[in-house]
């Protein structure tokens, strides 16, 4: 595969590696390190923490807030914020529940309509932000309060709509991949990843472009195979891989591919990095911004529906309490910059994993929720500190 003419990208010298770190190119390593630390600490304090049953529960708990967090990342990439995501998730879940239960619509149609409602909410936010030039903080703060109000209004005096346990929506979170299917999907994912890496490498060599040393892609494919196979193995020892996790994981992967390989994704990063440069380059900044808010609200709506599925009900607390804050914290802990232009969708996956692990581990240890909040806050502060330091490094 290699020939004499192939140029190999030289590995970084220690000095350059430090330079890259200083410039905020940390990637996912701090989070992965944090996850390993969490696993060691809670695993040693409570033998149940790393049990298949608990880890499967963790996977199930992540999906809803993780999906909302994905939406938050879309606006964070532009250097904006969406405080309404929690309320929008609750509102759209209520819309879905009213359509499917009170009006007896087809559940799929009800979900679709709820997502469209989310899109309209996002469109409204985006237009207020771009046309009236209201700060996104204020637009979505108004959304946080207003959509919560609309939710209460729609629910009326009843205050709760139960979803039947054997209905389509509730089944979403009680569906488990059979072992054979989980392994087939795993094998397919690893194969596709390896094949795309190999083809990309060949094309680069054919175009006489530098490629990394051979061990690196091999290590990446191996790492992916180990992580996926490990997860499937653990979850198969319990009830199996939850469908909810597959849906969330699929969203993460698809959105990451969109952000990195389409012109739209490139422009998102450009607008987040330097609006003026993007505008001068002829990029439709307004359109990108509106689209980001629409995406954020649609993902929030979908997250709300997943949460309703877990609970088998919607009530006045849907999308409330700390869901929004956890979603934002997850995005930031996962490595998305609050200053825009930096971050990948995997931040939602890693960040929500960190937060849920801490929450879950503290529950197992019967730690008071006061301590749980303080620990989560410390982790969030640490993540933002890393981000701020990285940003300072990149501007000097």
């Amino acid at each position: 595969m290699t020939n004499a003419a192939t140029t190999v990208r030289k590995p970084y010298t220690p000095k350059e590696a430090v330079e890259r770190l200083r410039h905020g190119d940390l990637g996912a390593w701090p989070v992965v390190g944090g996850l390993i630390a969490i696993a060691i600490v809670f695993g040693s304090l409570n033998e149940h923490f790393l049990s298949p049953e608990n880890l499967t529960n963790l996977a199930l708990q992540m999906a809803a807030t993780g999906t909302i967090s994905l939406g938050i990342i879309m606006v964070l990439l532009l250097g904006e914020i969406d405080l309404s995501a929690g309320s929008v998730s609750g509102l759209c879940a209520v819309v879905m529940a009213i359509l499917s239960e009170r009006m007896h619509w087809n559940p799929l149609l009800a979900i679709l309509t709820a997502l469209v409602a989310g899109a309209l909410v996002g469109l409204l936010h985006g237009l207020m932000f771009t046309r009236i030039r209201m700060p996104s903080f204020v637009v979505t703060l108004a959304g946080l309060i207003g959509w919560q109000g609309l939710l209460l209004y729609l629910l009326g005096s009843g205050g709760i709509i139960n979803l039947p346990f054997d209905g389509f929506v509730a089944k979403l979170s009680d569906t488990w991949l059979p072992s054979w299917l989980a392994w087939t999907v795993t094998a397919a994912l690893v194969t596709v990843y390896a094949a795309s890496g190999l083809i990309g490498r060949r094309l680069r060599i054919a175009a006489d472009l530098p490629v990394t040393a051979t061990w690196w892609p091999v290590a990446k494919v191996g790492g992916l195979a180990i992580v996926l196979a490990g997860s499937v193995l653990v979850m198969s020892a319990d009830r199996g891989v939850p469908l909810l996790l597959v849906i969330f994981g699929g969203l993460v992967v698809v959105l990451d591919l969109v952000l990195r390989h389409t012109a739209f994704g490139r422009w998102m990063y450009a607008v987040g990095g330097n609006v003026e440069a993007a505008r001068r380059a002829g990029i439709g900044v307004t359109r990108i911004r509106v689209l980001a808010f629409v995406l954020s609200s649609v993902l929030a709506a979908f997250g709300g529906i997943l949460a309703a599925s877990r609970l088998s009900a919607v009530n006045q607390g849907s999308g409330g309490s700390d869901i929004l804050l956890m979603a934002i914290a997850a995005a930031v802990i996962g490595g998305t910059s609050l200053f825009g232009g930096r971050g990948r969708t995997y931040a939602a996956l890693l960040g929500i994993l960190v937060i849920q692990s801490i929450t879950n581990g503290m529950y197992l240890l019967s730690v008071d929720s006061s301590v749980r909040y303080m620990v989560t806050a410390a982790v969030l502060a640490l993540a933002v500190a890393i981000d701020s330091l990285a940003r300072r490094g990149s501007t000097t």
Partner: protein
Amino acid sequence: MISATDISKRYGAVQALQGVSLDLRPGEVVALVGDNGAGKSTLVKVIAGAVSPDSGGLVIDDRPVHVGTPHDAQRLGISTVYQDLALCENLDVVANLFLGSERRRLSILSHIRMERSARDLLTSLDVRIRDIRVPVAMLSGGQRQSVAIARALIGEPRLVILDEPTAALGVEQTAQVLDLIRRLRERGLAVLLISHNLADVRAVSDRVVVLRLGRNAGEFRTADASQESIVAAITGAAA
């Protein structure tokens, strides 16, 4: 040949430009100099399509053309590198070079095609960046300026306007950028260089055009002109 002919522009009570003309020929570096407020920026903005003149206009190859927007100018082959580089520091060199004109098939970016052309372009300009896939934030000031200038060449322009390209650079990096300007000339491009630094102007330009108080105040062949005569034209001491 691209000419600006008899350009006038008034901002309220201020006559920024009055009957200014400028010829730009392929393979020639023209330096536009003048004191603050002499009208350099206004003239550049008119040529780049960012400002419409009250009278006068652009003539390209003996045909008058209408330049109403920066987009019009770009389509006519006029490319501008502004003083604030307008790079996205979070994106890599390749992404910055093709920003807004990404090569793509069915909306999917052609990473390899872009990286290959980026490398060929930078190599042809003798711009040395070790890894063009690192974020621009990690490059030196001279490298960033080089990337900004290289980016102006992506649309294959005929004229490149450089606004104070060496203003924020050290000695060595200034030399790099001046070399780059010479290579633009070798490629047969017309180059319009706006600079306060007469040493740079004398080092790299073929012709010096002086503006003073919104009017043409002298034109010199760089090789024949003395520093004193240029300074005198800028300050009006000769008059």
